[in-house]
């Protein structure tokens, strides 16, 4: 009995997609987001019928460009905010202008299994590592099984490497290679990690900037304590997944901007020139480390028991 879901190749077939949605590929009929307004801007409707091998528009004016549900490797056009919030007034000063950027959807959840794949450790191959205009780190295109995705590259990641993603915590610590993703309970104490999650399955939210790394300090019961780049200690469950190594683009903080124009290309507007006398907020402060941040809900142990 053959599988019901066949795999089809249509190089020349122009499959018209029924949903009037961003379709870079001849879209699957089931990929339609929820809550899309009935009238779309013209720039989006023009992108419905496209051949293979095409790219999307360089930028959109669609305010809902962030609402894409289906993951794609292709870069998407972004809309710049200019520091303005939903009321239209400036909320953050000094943002505006700058080169147009296209957003590449990065998968921060390393352990995302493919549809229909068993929840077992799997490997992926790095295809290429490139600059991302939206962040300071470099991104890497990895492919495994039937899908490709972008992830944050670690230092010394070369095209052609094989990286491993695992969720298994064994009794002995794994000798991890750079770029692999393991839960914190499986890593030896003292490894440099990046792309840390606070809760298992949430997706990496910490240690993502260029050249940063956290250190796994100790493992206590079922939790692990990590030192973040700001020297703050963080306690998380040991099943949270992190990647091993430092984030790529290590010399990012050593670069020299060189001229005012380069800052404008990055989208930073100049500061005001008005001279203020600085108050109590300015100057170097020396104070003890803030207490350890714990993302673990421990049952409260009462003294009587």
């Amino acid at each position, binding site marked *: 009995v*053959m599988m*019901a879901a*066949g*795999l*089809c190749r249509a190089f020349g077939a*122009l499959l018209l997609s029924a949903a009037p949605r961003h379709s870079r590929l001849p879209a699957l009929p089931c990929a339609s987001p929820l809550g899309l307004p009935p009238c779309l801007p013209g720039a989006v409707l023009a992108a419905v019928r496209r051949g293979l091998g*095409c790219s999307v528009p360089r930028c959109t004016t669609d305010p809902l460009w962030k609402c894409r549900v289906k993951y794609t490797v292709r870069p998407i056009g972004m809309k710049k905010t200019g520091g303005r919030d939903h009321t239209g007034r400036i909320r953050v000063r000094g943002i505006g202008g700058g080169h147009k950027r296209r957003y590449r959807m990065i998968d921060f959840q390393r352990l995302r299994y493919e549809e229909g794949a068993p929840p077992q450790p799997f490997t992926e191959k790095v295809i290429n590592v490139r600059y991302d205009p939206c962040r300071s780190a470099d991104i890497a295109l990895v492919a495994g099984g039937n899908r490709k995705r972008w992830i944050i590259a670690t230092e010394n990641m070369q095209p052609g490497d094989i990286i491993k993603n695992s969720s298994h915590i064994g009794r002995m610590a794994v000798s991890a290679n750079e770029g692999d993703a393991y839960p914190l309970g499986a890593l030896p104490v003292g490894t440099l990690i990046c792309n840390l999650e606070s809760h298992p399955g949430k997706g990496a939210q910490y240690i993502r900037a260029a050249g940063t790394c956290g250190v796994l300090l100790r493992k206590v019961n079922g939790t692990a304590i990590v030192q973040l780049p700001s020297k703050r200690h963080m306690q998380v469950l040991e099943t949270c997944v992190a990647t091993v190594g430092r984030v790529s683009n290590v010399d990012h903080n050593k670069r020299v901007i060189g001229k005012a124009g380069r800052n404008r290309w990055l989208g930073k507007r100049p500061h005001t020139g008005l001279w203020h006398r600085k108050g109590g907020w300015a100057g170097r402060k020396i104070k003890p480390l803030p207490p350890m941040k714990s993302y673990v809900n421990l049952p409260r142990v009462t003294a009587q028991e």
Partner: protein
Amino acid sequence: LFQGVRQAQWLTKTKLVEGLPPPVLSIIDNPAHQLEDHEERVQRAISHARFWETTEVAPRREHYCPVLFEDLIHLCRLMSVKYPSLTKRMLARNYRISATWERESILLQVRGQNGILMNSMAPIPPVASKEEILATEEHVLETFYPISPTIDLQEVNVYKELDDTGKSSRFRDGYPYSYPHTVFFLESANIRPNRFRPEQLRAKMLMFAFGNALAKAKVLYGNDPKVLEQPIVVQSIGTDGQLFQFMVFQLNTTDLVSSDGIKNLVWIDSDQNLYEKAQCIPEIKKRVVTKPAGIYGFQPDTFKKFLALYLHGTV
């Protein structure tokens, strides 16, 4: 396709051989099979396509690519003065192909309306000898761990498997020109991202040639997977107006479920330039004409191969 020809090879269970097969090469070398002053005629055809076709200064690729193709086919048909059996061919444009096969428990399909198919009354005789076919048994298909070979293919729910060659309906039985001979692919989109790169074009050619051969095999020998005693040969030529890819595909077996056993064969001759550059306006630097308008780097061998593939099967 992600890995190009290598992935197409795994999907169609094929072994690759560089260069064109010996029978085709012998046609090329035989001087009796050439047109008189064919070089001059080919250059005139290129000039027609690249320079004279439109009222604008330089015609765009979507104009000149089909025109060049028509001219080259016309030149090939002039040979039918010597070989009358060449008239027993027909061209089908906008033809639609759909063929399905199963490959290690995954159902694959080739569907599409792409390219131009040329059919003939008589099939092309098998190109590889029996020993070569048996020798493919030891060849191991390369896999790309950890990438699965079905990456980058669209997933579609299959309601009905179709094996057709033809337009909306299959070519009716009893149609005199029933054997697929050559498939032509013209990459004529204007913008470069819309066109296929040479590697991807070769992969596409391989898949469509395989689809045509498989459909024909199912018509002739039924739907059971087995090794064919009379292998089916389909050729394909792909071009973007300047670069030509030639391919001869021989279907030896329809038993595609397992990865062992006899494999199909393909001979690929890739990246043959017909000419290096066609200058429409003379290039002028500092008021001195450095490069007058014309065609540079013309290679007659490419047209000889084109002609040889056309004549193959009747000569």
